[in-house]
């Protein structure tokens, strides 16, 4: 499957036609995520991963460990975090730290909304999903915004 991701390349045809041309290059979709994440998504998740690393380091002395072999994060479905981008950035950010080479486990907490009209709770996939019980569009988030480190396996 190919999809046009709109990579813009300017080309000059020499003096006869000096106008830059915009060319969209089709890219194979299974090779795509890394490129896209690097440029567009990972920056946000990189900051969060840097926080993960700092939190690990802050616990190393008090909890008496020198190496982390597994990190479990809880990421809510309605948080602004993309688990794939976290997985992609994890190894890079942990390199040279206590968690160099550690396994990353992400548990996703589902989104739950409380309806303003009928007062019932239902599962929501996005922040703008209506109440699944009565269809009312106004729903408050009660679960799914989490971004937490749950636990570690340490040596």
């Amino acid at each position: 499957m190919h999809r046009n991701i709109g990579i813009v390349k300017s080309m000059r045809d020499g003096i006869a036609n000096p106008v830059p041309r915009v060319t969209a290059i089709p890219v194979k979709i299974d090779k795509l995520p890394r490129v896209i994440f690097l440029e567009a998504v990972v920056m946000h998740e990189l900051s969060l991963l840097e926080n993960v690393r700092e939190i690990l380091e802050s616990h190393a002395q008090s909890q008496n460990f020198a190496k982390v072999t597994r990190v479990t994060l809880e990421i809510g479905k309605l948080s602004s975090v993309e688990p794939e981008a976290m997985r992609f950035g994890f190894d890079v950010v942990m390199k040279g730290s206590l968690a160099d080479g550690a396994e990353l486990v992400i548990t996703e907490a589902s989104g739950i909304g409380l309806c303003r009209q009928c007062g019932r709770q239902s599962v929501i996939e996005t922040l703008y999903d209506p109440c699944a019980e009565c269809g009312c569009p106004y729903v408050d988030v009660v679960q799914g915004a989490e971004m937490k480190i749950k636990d570690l396996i340490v040596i």
Partner: protein
Amino acid sequence: MCGICGCGSTEPKQAHRFVLSQGHHHQHDHDEPDTGRMVKIEQELLGKNNAYAMQNRSYFKDHHIFALNLVSSPGAGKTTLLVETIKALKGQVPIAVIEGDQQTEHDADRIRATGTPAVQINTGRACHLDAHGVGHAVMELGVQDNSLLAIENVGNLVCPSSFDLGEAHKVVVLSVTEGDDKPLKYPDMFHAADLMLINKTDLLPYVDFDIERCSDYARRVNPDIRIIRLSSTKGENFSAWTDWLLEQMQALV
């Protein structure tokens, strides 16, 4: 390394005995692999930022500073909005501005040209302001008591939504040239904001932007969001925004 089984032993090969029926036998001991132990952490990823944000918030409260975190995509008109706000409120309330951009002092220069103190934070690689940097900027600015502090975040509708700076409200600016479905495309930001300013309304005749549809989308993401439509450059309905500011500041005292 043991060349036969790759077990890491430095002993000569002769030290190994291999008995077919028993498999591979070593005279040296393998260390028992340490399977590790579990440490419960249960800590927010943004805990550190949130702690700085709380510090800023209590500083603002003690000094009656009304802090706003202005967010939008690049080019929605945040800086022009601020310049016009400064002109409109001149003599009524002291204003200070923190400008966030990845590079350049351009925006802070535009604010300073109005005679208002401004500090520029260049975030470099980062795509958002954080509470720690804002705390330092507040000290550097020496924000007066009873001021309006406008923090113009990096133009980005994604990342700044997660980073609390200690502000009273996030204000999202959306211009009519951007498309009325932005609240659904970037729901986190519209969920985090308390007020949406629909800017550049003077351009409505030239663009396909439905204000009602945009407002409906924003309310689906955030039922409590307040919405003000205005044009900073032409002044249309601009007083609705400055009235809101003054009313909020009045409530602080």
